[in-house]
C-alpha cells in the first residue's frame, strides 16, 4: 500500500500569495512562475524540500523533474536547510584584494564551520560565493538577503556577536564613489520627515 504524504501544502491557505505570483505572467508563460514560487518557499523554509518541489510542479503543470532541473541550475536555491543566518562571503577578485579570503578564515574560526557547512544548532551557515556586485565597497558579507559592506575585523566580530544573540544589525548604506560627501538629504526631505513624525 502506498503511504500518502501528509505534509500540508505550502500554498494551502495562501491563495492570495499564489494568485499574485501566477498573475504576474501571461497565460502562455505559466512556467515563468517556477522561480518566484521557489523563492517564496525558500524564504519561509530556508530550503525547498522534495515535497515543496512536487507541489510547485503540480501548480505549474510540469513534472517535478523539470522543477528540479531549474532549481539545480542556480546557486542560491537550497535543497538542504541553511542556518538562521546564512553567511555568504564574496570571494571574487575585488573582494579578495580587499581581504575577503582572510575574512573568510576569520569567520570560519569564529563559527567553527568550513565552507558549505551549517552548525548543529542551525544558527549559522557558511558559504563562499562569487561576485556580489559590491566591488567598490569590498569586502562584502551577505547575511541572508542583507549586504554588509567594507567589513573590517572589528565590524565583523561585532556583527557575528549580534547575530549570535539573535539581532540583525542595520547595515550602514555604503556606496562609495560619486556621492561620497554629497549633500544629503535634499529635495523635500524635511517635509517627509515631518509627515512621518
Amino acid at each position, binding site marked *: 500500500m502506498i503511504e500518502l504524504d501528509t505534509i500540508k501544502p505550502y500554498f494551502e491557505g495562501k491563495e492570495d500569495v499564489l494568485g499574485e505570483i501566477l498573475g504576474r505572467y501571461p497565460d502562455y508563460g505559466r*512556467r515563468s512562475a517556477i522561480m518566484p514560487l521557489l523563492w517564496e518557499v525558500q524564504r519561509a523554509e530556508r530550503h525547498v524540500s522534495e515535497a515543496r518541489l512536487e507541489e510547485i510542479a503540480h501548480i505549474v503543470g510540469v513534472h517535478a523533474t523539470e522543477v528540479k532541473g531549474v532549481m539545480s541550475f542556480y546557486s542560491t536555491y537550497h535543497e538542504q536547510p541553511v542556518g538562521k543566518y546564512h553567511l555568504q562571503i564574496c570571494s571574487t577578485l*575585488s573582494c579578495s*584584494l580587499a581581504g575577503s579570503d582572510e575574512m573568510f578564515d576569520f569567520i570560519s574560526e569564529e563559527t567553527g564551520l568550513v565552507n558549505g557547512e551549517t552548525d548543529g544548532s542551525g544558527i549559522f551557515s557558511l558559504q563562499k560565493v562569487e*561576485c556580489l556586485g559590491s566591488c*567598490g565597497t569590498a569586502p562584502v558579507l551577505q547575511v541572508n538577503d542583507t549586504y554588509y559592506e567594507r567589513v*573590517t575585523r572589528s565590524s565583523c566580530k561585532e556583527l557575528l556577536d549580534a547575530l549570535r544573540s539573535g539581532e540583525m544589525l542595520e547595515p550602514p548604506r555604503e556606496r562609495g*564613489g560619486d556621492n561620497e560627501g554629497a549633500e544629503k538629504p535634499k529635495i523635500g526631505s524635511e517635509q517627509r520627515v515631518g509627515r512621518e513624525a
Partner: protein
Amino acid sequence: MTTIAEKPQLISSRKDAQFEVTLYKNVGVEGAHTLETYLEGGGYKAAKKALTTMTPEAVVDEVKRSGLRGRGGAGFPTGLKWSFMPKPDGRQRFIVCNADESEPGSFKDRYLMEDDPHQLLEGMVIAGYAIGATKGVLYVRGEYYKSYERLREALAEATAGGYLGKGLFGSEFDFEIILHRGAGAYICGEETSLMNSFEGLRANPRLKPPFPAQAGVYGLPTTINNVESFASAVHIIAKGADWYASMGTDDSKGTKLYQVSGPAAKPGVYELPMGATFRELIFELAGGPTEPIKALIPGGSSTPMLAFNDETLDTPMDYGSIAKKGSMLGTGGVILIPQEKCIVNATWNLVRFYAHESCGKCTPCREGISGWMTKMYQKLVSGRGEAGDVELIEIMSRNIKGKAFCPLADACLGPVQSSLALFRDEYEHLAEHGTPKYTKTNWWSA
C-alpha cells in the same frame, strides 16, 4: 566676414564646465527612490514628452542620433537595436531589462536600481513605446534583494500614480512591467540565457539566429537592454540627442558610469563623459591608488588587463581607444591589481569564477574552462607546477578561443591571455620554484 565652421569640441572630461552628472545625480540622496522625490526632480517628463509629442519612430531616431551604445558591455548601438524589431503584426512584443549585473568589477546598475528605480522604469516606458512593446520584463539578479525591494515599491507607486498601466499620459499606449528575480547565475547576463531563465527553463544560452527581435521571450519579438542604457534614454529624450552627442568621442557618445575597485583611496562609481582618461577616473576622482599597481582591468573581469603605465592612463575610456590597446570598454568596471598580488593567483581567482559559472552546455567551456583550465591553475598555485605548464595554458587558450557556444569561455580567456602576455615571468617563476614571485597574503588591512 565668414569663418569656416569648426567641428564643435566634444566634452570629454569632468573638468569641462558644461558637464553635469545626470544618470547618477539621485544616487546617495535620501528618499530619491520614492516617486514623490523623482517627480520633484522632473521625473517622468521625458516619458510624457515621448508618448505625447513624438512618434515611436521619432524616439528611435532620437536615440540613434544620440550615438548611445549599449552599456551592458558589448556596446551595440541602442537605437539601431531598437530598429531591428519587425513590423507590428499583432503579436505581443517585449522590452527586457537586463539587470543581472554579475561581471566582477561591475556594480553601477545596483546603485541605479536601489537609489533611482523610477529612472529605470521611465527608460523602459520610453523604450517600450519606441518598439511597440506593451510588456516589459525586468530581470534583476537574485542577490540584489535591496534593488528588488526598491523596484517592487517603485512599480507599485508608478502603477498607482498612472505612470504604468493603461493609456499612459492620455495616449493610447499601455505598458506594464513584470519584475522577475534571478537566483545566482552569471550566465543569465547573456541575453538568451536570461530569456530561458525568465521562462522557467534552465538558463542555457540559445543558438543565434534567431535573434531576440525575431524570437525572444516566449518566442515573441523582444528587445533587451542594460539598466544604464535605459537610464541614458531618459536623458536623451529629455535633453535631446544633440546634447548627448556633444559629449564623448567620435565613436562613443554621452556619459557613462565608470567603476573603480581594488586598492584606490575612493573606490566606487563615477559618472564621466565618454572619452575621459583612466588617469582622470583613477587619480582625480578615485583619489589614486593606495599602493603600487602593476595592471588594470579596464571594463569588468572579462576584458584583457593592461599594464598600469602612462600610456594606459592617458587612454580615453571609449570603445575604440581601448579596443586599439587590445582590450574592451566592457561595463567600465576598472579593477586595479596591486604590484604585490601574485598575478597567477589573481587570474586563478577569475578562472575559478568562470569555471563556477559555466553552464556546462558546450564542450570547450565545460571541459576547457571548468575542467582543464581549472586543473592547470590549481596545479600552479598549489606549487606543483612543472616545465611546460605555462605553454599548455597558452595552447589551451588558443584552442578554446572562439570555439564555445556563448561568450562565457572567451570571457575567461581575457584575463588568462592578457596576464600571460604581460606577466609571463610570474607564471614561469611559480612553475619553476613552486612559490609565487609575490607572496603577500594578508589583504585585510582594517
